[in-house]
Each structure stands twice: as C-alpha cells, then as structure tokens.
C-alpha cells in the first residue's frame, strides 16, 4: 500500500468509529424532537413531525426543571469546597516532603477507588443523623469523597510544572504565604485550575447513586428524576429523551476548552 492509501484507510477507520460512537446519541436527539405518537408508531430516521413540545414540558414543569437547578447547586458547591481544600494540599504535596506524605497520598487515592455502594448506607445514616438529609450540601460533601483526591492529583501535576525559584523569588520580595499563593501562584497555574474545575464539575454531574440516596424531594438531582419517571406505567419517551439531551449539553459546551487535557483529567492527572 502506498502512504496515501494507508492514511486514507486510517481516516476511514476513525470516521467509522466516530460515526458508530455518535449513532446512539443521534438516536436520543432524534427522539427528543418527535411526538410520542411518532415514536411508538414506527421507526423513522429523522423526525417527520418536528416538535419542541418535549423541551417545552421540561422548561415549564417545576418537577422537571428544578432537578437541573438542584444538580447545578450541589455541583457548584462541591466545586467550591473541593478547590478551596485541594489547592493548598496539592501545593504541599508538590513542594514539600513531610512525615506520612506518601501514605496520605495513597489514602486519598483509595477514596477515589472506593465503590460508592460501600458508602451508601453509612452516608445515608450520617447525613440523616446530623439533619442534612435531602439538602444540597449533603450531596456536595458526599461527592468530595472522589472529587477531592482527583483535584489534588491533577493540581499537583500542574504545580510540579512550575519551578520552585518563582516561590523563592516571591518570598524574597516580601510576600507572605497566603498573599503569594493567591496573587502570584494561582494566576500562574490558572489553566490547571480551570481544567481541574471542569473535571470536578463533570464527575459530580455524572454521579447518580450517592446523589439519589441522599435526597428525596427538595434537593433531588435531575438524574434521579429521570429514573423515577421510568418507573411510571406509561413512559413518556419523548420527554425522557429531551431530558437526557439537556444533561449532555453542559459537558459538550465546555469540553472544547479542555480538549488537550481530557486524557489527563480522566487519568487523575497522570498522563
């Protein structure tokens, strides 16, 4: 085979893979624009009777759109808490050796690897006993279990890329540590912080098991509302598809900005 033919067959292969990858998503999108009647009456490859009604249902019914608001609230809370505690810790791991540092790092990792199902019952009882059940902060704290280790690992990677001479120069200039950290150091790793924030957002957004268990009504995430709707006798497929499409949007809208760091984020900052 000539080089040209080779690159053409490679291009064909990757195109085929991506088309296959996108087909299920297209099917969801396609269905979200159909009426239930069209969905159930037979297979159509695109909506013949194009409608936005399914989306209208979600945006006008509080029991649907409150799910998105609840999810957003606890995700943002989780992001704030995680970044505030993870930034100094990542700095410590990237700059200093101290007693027990390796053990602590491993312990953090083991929490990322712990099956959420193991923590289900104790979380439920812990948050019930301190009166936090069905609040946004309960879910935000529970998601720290896997997001804090992730954030520490990614940030540590970015911080290790900044030479320590910068720190020392700032001290010589007479900056105190907090001042140096916020005014000098954080701007230097701002892209790292952005990438970390994206992944905290993502992992909190996609999680269902803990979020569903720790909430019942007031703080119920959109993911739980979707599963509940499926339990009903007649499934409203069109609305379900529209709700699904709306949960995919936030990630797709911002992934462009972190495209070069996607692998790093999913691999806990180790690529």
């Amino acid at each position: 085979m000539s080089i040209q033919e080779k690159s053409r067959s490679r291009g064909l292969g990757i195109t085929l893979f991506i088309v296959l990858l996108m087909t299920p998503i297209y099917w969801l999108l396609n269905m979200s624009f159909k009426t239930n009647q069209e969905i159930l009456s037979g297979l159509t490859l695109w909506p013949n009777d194009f409608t936005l009604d399914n989306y209208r249902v979600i945006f006008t019914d509080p029991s649907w759109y409150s799910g998105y608001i609840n999810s957003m609230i606890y995700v943002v809370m989780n992001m704030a808490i995680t970044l505030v505690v993870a930034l100094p810790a990542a700095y410590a791991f990237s700059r200093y050796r101290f007693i027990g540092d390796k053990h602590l790092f491993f312990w953090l990792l083991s929490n990322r690897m712990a099956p959420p199902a193991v923590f289900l019952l104790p979380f439920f009882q812990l948050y019930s006993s301190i009166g936090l059940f069905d609040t946004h902060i309960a879910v935000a704290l529970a998601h720290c279990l896997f997001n804090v280790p992730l954030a520490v690992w990614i940030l540590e990677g970015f911080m290790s890329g900044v030479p320590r001479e910068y720190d020392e120069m700032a001290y010589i200039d007479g900056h105190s540590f907090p001042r140096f950290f916020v005014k000098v150091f954080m701007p230097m790793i701002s892209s790292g912080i952005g990438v970390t924030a994206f992944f905290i957002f993502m992992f909190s957004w996609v999680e269902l098991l803990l979020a569903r268990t720790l909430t019942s009504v007031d703080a119920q995430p959109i993911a739980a509302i979707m599963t509940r709707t499926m339990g009903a006798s007649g499934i409203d497929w069109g609305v379900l598809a529209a709700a699904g499409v709306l949960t995919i949007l936030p990630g797709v809208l911002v992934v462009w900005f972190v495209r070069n760091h996607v692998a790093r984020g999913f691999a806990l900052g180790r690529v």
Partner: protein
Amino acid sequence: MSKVPDNRAWWLVLPVLLLVAFSALVPLMTVVNYSVQDIFGPGNAYYVGTEWFRDVLRDQRLQESLLRQFGFSAAVLAIEIPLGIAVALMMPKGGIRASLCLILLAIPLLIPWNVVGTIWQIFARGDIGLFGWGLNELGFSYNYTGDPVAAWFTVLLMDVWHWTPLVALLCYSGLRAIPEAFYQAAEIDRASRWAVFRYIQLPRLRNVLVIAVLLRFMDSFMIYTEPFVLTGGGPGSSTTFLSQTLTTMAVGQFDLGRAAAFSLVYFLIVLLVSWLFFTAITHMDKER
C-alpha cells in the same frame, strides 16, 4: 524536582484531611461497627463477631455476583484495551481534525451515567430503537429484556461504547509524546508497520496502558448505574453486578450486618488493586 523536607506542610493538607476523614473515615467506621453486630433496632444490637463475614463468604448469591463481576471486568478489558489502541493509532496527528476527534471521543465520557443507560435502553429496544430494530430486521431474535445472553451482550456493548474513548484518549496522548526522530529512524531501517508498532509505539505506551488497565478494571468493578437503568440487573440476576447486589442488600432489604461485612470484603479487594495502581504510578513518577 527535589522537595524540601518541612513538616509544617501538614497545615496545608489539614483541610483535606479533615474533609475526607469526615466523608470517608466516619462512614467506614460505621460499616465496621455494623459488620460485627446483629441489629434489630435502635439500641437493640448484639455483638456477633465474625459471623457475618463467614456468612457472606459462603453466600451463594454473592459468590455468583462476584464471579459475574470478574467475568464482566475481564471482558471489558479484553475488548476496550485493544480497540482503544487501534482507535488511537488511527487518529489524525494534529490540526483541527485531531481536535475534533478528541472532542467527539470525549462526549460519551461526559454523559451522566444514568443517561448512558437511558440512551441504550432506547437504542436497543426492538420496537423504537435503531439497534434492536436493526438486529431483528437482520433476522436475529434479539430482546435484551427477556434473554440473559442478549442482556449481557447489551451491557457489555454499552460499556465498550462508554469507555473505549477513554482508553483511546490515553493512548493518543501517549503516542503524541513519541519524538518524530524515532519514526524517521524506523523509516531508514525500512521497518514494517507492525515492527514500528511492536518496537517503538507499544513500549512507549506502557505507562498510559498501565493507567488505562487499572482505571478500567476499577471502574468496571464498581459499575452500578448503567446496568441498573438498562436492565435493572435482569433478566433474573444475569446482569446483577457486585454494587447492585450490595445496594439491594443494604437499602432494599436493610440487611445491615451482612451488607456491612460484604462492603468490607468488597472494599478490601478494591484497596488491594488501588495499592497495585499506586505502586505502578509512583514507580512511573520515579522514572520521569
């Protein structure tokens, strides 16, 4: 970079320590506490020692679910790792097309896990789903809600769809780190495509592959949401994996002692794998 020994750094990690202790250590202690007691109600518990553990290790339902879990994780690795490498090798090397590929590949990874289940629930149905309808049109009798083999196949296919892009992304970033000079040397030697892969690309992919294998093993080992939404663990218990067995036991039946003992066994397995993971990574960091 050499690090400065300074124990005052503990003050910087203290917030993380407290937070994770609150959200991990306290719950874990509760689990340990339950696992050695028989609880009939508040203030009515008896110490039973290791009885629950012996019970759990003998429980046939759990053994079956553990076996299914290992089978599933093994199948996931056997398909996703080679496929991911192949996709990474086919990706464009740079420019706008590479960026586009990266983003399209990342999309399945950014979908909430229950929506992944929903997508496949719709996509694989015989009446309204393209995939199920297509298979039936081709003459296969395919029905994932009734046939255990079809259900198992659909869950596996869903996981391949969901996570192969992760392997591909990791391998792609590994491939990009290979200096161009290596390929030029291979060209001078008239190395075959296979030789380039076997002696240049694969050795350089070792580190990312270690990460990919361990991440995929661990995440598939605690899979819950996707099969729960797609099949609900059925038909029968053909797609009930460890997390779902545990969740049913703990929240469904409120069988606290047994669930706690089971949790600890489960956690220990994962901890062992995490330790391997950590050792592999620190080893890599040293090389770097």
